[in-house]
């Protein structure tokens, strides 16, 4: 930076605006961090006093019990969404960023596909859930089960993955691609070995954020996965599956305390799950970043 005395603006309005700007941006930060901390602390405070470790190892019984079915169900749903939405979303992002034939004007192509993917991102989850119910659970007679839930969640979450993959790929410097081309690498090979590797942090972050969104969804699962007290089975259809958000949504205002505590316990487990997802994504990013020179 050029040697500068801390630039002291000459006129009062500018000074005021500067002060306002600095103050407001810090205040904004507080308005974000504050409620988030409050939110998490609130859940912890509600759940911890009545926490029992048996919640993790028992299934719901009567009005109380545990959440083992829901925890395992949520994990199963996570893995399923990762496989389905992850592969489709990443490939879609690659298509938009790398392989789309650009227009003659120099702008990137694929506007229709991109717009429709973005439209899907804003779709109300309840509508998707209901369409899944009508078309898959009732129409195809699958009943409440895992596969309709996975399909609906994947449709919901793929646009986010595609968008983050595309932006991560766009951030990879053109130098890398040109260097790979200069070395004679085919596009696919270059993609795999050079471009995606350097975009991997962004891609993985997008994947994990999308997973966290999927895991936290209630409305689509209410109408596709149903609910059950038993542990997840291997059947994809005809067998309902439990998930944590059901208990948070259904039991939070139950007058019977045992049921209410179940709701708070489920909320706590959900937050821990989301934290684990995001922290591990961050650690993963740091590990791969060690060997790749990125813009960060």
């Amino acid at each position: 930076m050029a040697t500068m005395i801390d630039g002291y603006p000459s006129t009062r309005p500018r000074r005021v605006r500067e002060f306002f700007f600095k103050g407001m941006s810090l205040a904004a930060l507080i308005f974000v961090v504050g409620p988030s901390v409050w939110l998490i602390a609130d859940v912890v405070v509600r759940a911890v006093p009545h926490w029992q470790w048996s919640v993790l190892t028992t299934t719901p019984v009567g009005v109380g019990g545990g959440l083992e079915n829901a925890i395992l169900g949520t994990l199963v749903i996570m893995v399923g969404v990762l496989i389905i939405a992850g592969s489709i979303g990443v490939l879609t992002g690659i298509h938009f960023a790398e392989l789309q034939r650009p227009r003659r004007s120099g702008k990137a192509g694929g506007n229709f596909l991109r717009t429709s993917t973005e439209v899907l991102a804003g779709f109300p989850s309840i509508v998707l859930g209901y369409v899944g119910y009508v078309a898959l659970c009732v129409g195809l007679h699958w009943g409440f089960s895992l596969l309709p839930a996975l399909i609906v969640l994947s449709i919901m979450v793929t646009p986010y993955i595609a968008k983050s993959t595309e932006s991560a790929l766009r951030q990879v410097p053109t130098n890398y691609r040109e260097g790979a081309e200069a070395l004679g690498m085919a596009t696919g090979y270059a993609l795999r070995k050079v471009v995606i590797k350097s975009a991997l942090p962004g891609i993985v972050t997008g994947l994990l954020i999308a997973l966290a969104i999927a895991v936290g969804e209630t409305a689509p699962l209410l109408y596709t996965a149903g609910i059950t007290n038993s542990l997840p089975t291997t059947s994809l259809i005809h067998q309902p599956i439990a998930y944590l958000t059901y208990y948070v949504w259904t039991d939070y205002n139950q007058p019977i305390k045992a049921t209410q505590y179940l709701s708070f316990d489920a909320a706590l487990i959900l937050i821990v799950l989301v934290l684990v997802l995001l922290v591990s994504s961050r650690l993963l990013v740091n590990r791969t970043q060690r060997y790749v020179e990125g813009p960060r």
Partner: protein
Amino acid sequence: MKNLLRSLTAIALATSGLLVAVALPASATTKTKIVTCFRLEKNVVHTAKFHGSCRAGWSKKRPKPAPVADDSVETPGTASLTETGSTLLYPLWNIWAPAYQSEFPQVSVTTGSTGSGTGIADAASGTVNIGSSDAYLSSTQLTSTPNLLNIPLAISYQMIEYNIPGVTAHLKLNGTIVSQIYQGQITNWNDSAIAALNPGVNLPNLKIVALHRSDGSGDTFIFSQYLTDSDPTWSSKYSYGTTISWPTISNALGENGNGGMVSGCAATAGCIAYVGISYLTSVLGDGQTYAQLENGNGQYELPTPATASAEAAGFTAKTPANGTISMVDGKVSGGYPIVNYEYAIVNKAQSSSTTAKAIRSLLEWAIDPSYGQSSQYLGQVRFDPLPVKIVTQSYKQIKEIQ
């Protein structure tokens, strides 16, 4: 920084691993063998769980009670049943299901409380085995899904509860007043109409907040039936149903489920709400109380098992074989006006005979006076058992499930 993060993560993982390693065996060792024991008392089978061995007077062998009312419980094969629907019946299902499963562990029963509307809809579409509903099926529902049965399981009733700080008396209310409250014509608790019925009570100057169910609800069904019978204006404008178009008034709130009604009313001073009797303990625990309602004979009755069974008795002879009847606001002396059958909505045609048998077994167990209808279960939710004639009728309906 990175190293710090890495070491912190390692420590956290190690600690949590240690905790799990310690906690799981610890929780396992506290599990001594739990046995299910039975006892026959007054022709009712009581179930209890003990650690290790049965206490004196109980035995591990399931006793056979003398058959009553033409009902016998079938033994099912392995099945997994799902039930959902009425939030009014939900507390009872949560008592019935573990008791049934302790006798027939091969059947797993999942209960849900999504509202009578969902119970009916899901039973109709086959996504759930048993739908619970406080409301019987409508003619249009029967036309679109002809194979549906509504099988009476128990007799329940509904209270009108309120949260008026300082008032602990059971106010006398009638259908006309409640209807006017929900239409916004009576807006304050110290209104002359309410005061006229309750001369000895000091009613404060407090705005009434009328709570209603926003989900499809059997409670709304019987409540609106009561208002329809009492108030001709309500009858012509709003009528009754599991969902109705509520009058738009300024102080109204929509709540989800009976649970939502209770907690919503607890948080709202001046509220009035209609709640199923199975939530009585929660209502009283939150400092609220309930009203005496005027029945068809002009008497004011409290919601008790006695008044409810009196009302139901007046309808037993009239109940048709398919169970479809409204017991609201009958002209029964000493009867509480808002009483209803709790129905199991089941599709006659099930996908497999194993499932059908399990459903039949569960329902037969539920309506059997020696099992599900005994006071050890119904007493916990203050329901009334079905009269013998209705048990027979329900049993005939259950037999149609194939």
